[in-house]
């Protein structure tokens, strides 16, 4: 072999058609850490290849050199006599006599760089893969969020519709409840005016006044505990009962006993639904000018005599639906013409400072009953505007002028 090639700064090796080593230069023998070329010549190239390179030579090098007659910049790893792997670049060409000439350059440093490049590429691929995955997850989450939003929107719409339906139903129920209320009575002997205001659509207050005979009138005011739909339902069932009883001219004790009994009966098997109510019932006989009343736990009615003196028709009994088998006893007193009586529920009295109702009555004794009613009504509305919280109970009052 040419002396220049023997010690050239690159490996030089020639191979036979069957990949056996024909010649090898000194530089490559040294690189491979063999004592002399004699141990390599005549051996298969595999002797100086790593396992993976042996396969690679078969899969790529031999087909390529056969097809193209040359190979350029093939990366391989050689195996030294001491078992060290040596990364190299190989150029080869196929000669006319079917011998293969290879030039080999070790590339430790470049290999490290390429390793880094590959690692960097792999890291970039991994990062990009993870980013894609995260993006997909994000998209999925967004999809879920959107569908939840849609559900929320739909349920909101349903709620809104439900609310609207309920509102409509309540307004209808309010009309029905108000239909059950009796109209004002105004004649030469008596004037009866009423004010009725529910804290919600439906009220737990109910009243009724009836002309029983040409001279006799029955006036009742009830306040079922609580307010809203449940209380309103109880008022409606009580109303149908008291309307019948009072219209038939039944004695006050019996009216109250029946109502009391009815409540006990209603809830005897259902403690959860239990409601009681306060009630005041008056009968007025214009011919004898007497007032007979029973007050079952209700705020005292205020009686204003013609001379301005105020009296209270205090409770005579506990509320209806509380204690069973109570005996109701009415009280009777006589009046003179011009006497006024104010019946009210606690929603009215509690809207004011104590004694406000007394003052309002006293202060308006000289004006007409309708004006007095308006005065109280306006005072209530003013209070309601001032203190929102006082508007949370049903309010009802009845003004009578004898």
């Amino acid at each position, binding site marked *: 072999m040419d002396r220049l090639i023997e010690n050239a700064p690159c490996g030089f090796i020639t191979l036979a058609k069957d990949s056996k080593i024909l010649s090898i230069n000194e530089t490559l023998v040294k690189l491979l850490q063999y004592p002399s070329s004699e141990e390599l010549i005549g051996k298969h190239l595999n002797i100086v290849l790593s*396992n993976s390179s042996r*396969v690679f030579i078969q899969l790529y090098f031999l087909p390529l050199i056969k097809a193209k007659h040359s190979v350029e910049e093939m990366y391989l790893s050689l195996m030294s006599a001491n078992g060290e792997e040596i990364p190299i670049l190989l150029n080869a060409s196929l000669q006319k006599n079917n011998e293969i000439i290879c030039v080999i350059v070790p590339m430790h440093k470049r290999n490290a760089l390429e390793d880094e490049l590959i690692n960097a590429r792999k890291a970039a691929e991994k990062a990009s893969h993870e980013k894609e995955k995260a993006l997909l997850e994000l998209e999925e989450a967004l999809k879920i969020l959107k569908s939840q939003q849609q559900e929320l929107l739909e349920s909101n719409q349903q709620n809104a519709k439900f609310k609207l339906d309920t509102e409509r139903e309540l307004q209808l129920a309010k009309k029905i409840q108000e239909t059950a209320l009796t109209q004002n009575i105004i004649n030469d002997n008596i004037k009866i005016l009423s004010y009725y205001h529910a804290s919600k659509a439906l009220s737990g207050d109910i009243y009724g006044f009836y002309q029983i005979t040409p001279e006799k009138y029955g006036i009742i005011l009830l306040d079922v505990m609580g307010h809203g739909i449940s209380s309103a339902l109880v008022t409606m069932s009580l109303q149908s009962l008291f309307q019948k009883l009072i219209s038939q001219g039944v004695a006050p004790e019996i009216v109250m006993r029946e109502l009391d009994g009815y409540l006990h009966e209603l809830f005897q098997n259902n403690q959860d639904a239990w409601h009681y109510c306060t009630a005041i019932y008056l009968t007025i006989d214009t011919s004898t000018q007497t007032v007979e009343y029973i007050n079952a736990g209700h705020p005292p009615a205020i009686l204003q005599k013609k001379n301005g003196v105020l009296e209270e028709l205090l409770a005579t009994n506990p509320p209806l639906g509380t204690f069973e088998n109570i005996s109701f006893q009415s009280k009777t007193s006589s009046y003179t013409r011009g006497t006024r009586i104010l019946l009210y529920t606690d929603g009215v009295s509690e809207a004011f400072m104590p004694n406000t109702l007394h003052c309002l009555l006293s202060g308006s004794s000289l004006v007409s009953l309708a004006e007095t009613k308006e005065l109280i009504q306006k005072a209530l509305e003013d209070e309601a505007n001032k203190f929102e919280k006082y508007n949370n109970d049903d309010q009802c009052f009845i003004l009578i002028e004898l």
Partner: protein
Amino acid sequence: MNQNIIKRNNINISGKGKKPIIFAPGFGCDQTVWKDVLPAFEEDYQVILFDYVGFGGSDISAFNSVKYGKLSGYVQDVLDVCAVLDLKEAIFVGHSVSSMIGLLASNAEQSHFSHLIMIGPSPCYLNDPPDYYGGFEKEDLENLIDMMEKNYIGWANVFSSTLINNAERTDAAKELEDRFCSTDPLIATTFAKACFFTDSRQDITKAKVPSLILQCTEDIIAPKGVGEYLKRNLPNSEITYMNTSSHCPHISDPDETILSIKNYLINQTELLVGEGTGGV
């Protein structure tokens, strides 16, 4: 659909005979590897060449790393080629991993195939001691895949420069040449992983067509022990030991390869005549 497969798998048909013979390229190569072998068959056979999707002149846009991440993807390519050409009783010549792909295809659809010629086959490249030595540890194969990736860096420009020096080549030939032993690292490593880490030892016992194992001397990819393992476990198989010492005898020694295949086929024909079932 039919035209699509012909284009997708770059199917090329030549030869004057009626009996079909399919040549399937081995690991990572395309149909050009058969150029020294196929003229010997064109007189008597209908010679069919094709490329797996991702290699040679195939339609690379049909590549799908999930489908072709498993050997079954390449088996399906073979079945698609057979179906589109309506092949009956074809001889399938497969190199390296293609011989196993052909075997799996014949197990799936026997009617397409009459014989398998397996050049340097291996049902499993990994060692599975103590009873099976495929020749490789997992690390060896992983290093090989790394080496493929590293060569991609070096090769990216090699092919274009080679082409400039060969001005007489036609464009079509350039295209073919350019993809020789595909350098696309994604496709090459996908194929490598599908091939090298598959264990088909369960499948060989279910072989339905007779086969010839061509065992080369000193084949480090498919060692002698593996060829003999196949001979023992592959029903209806014969083994021929070749003098050539490489993994690619059809390239390194096409004459011996042609002779080995023809000898086997002649014997098979005589067997058929002898059994009175009619000749080819």
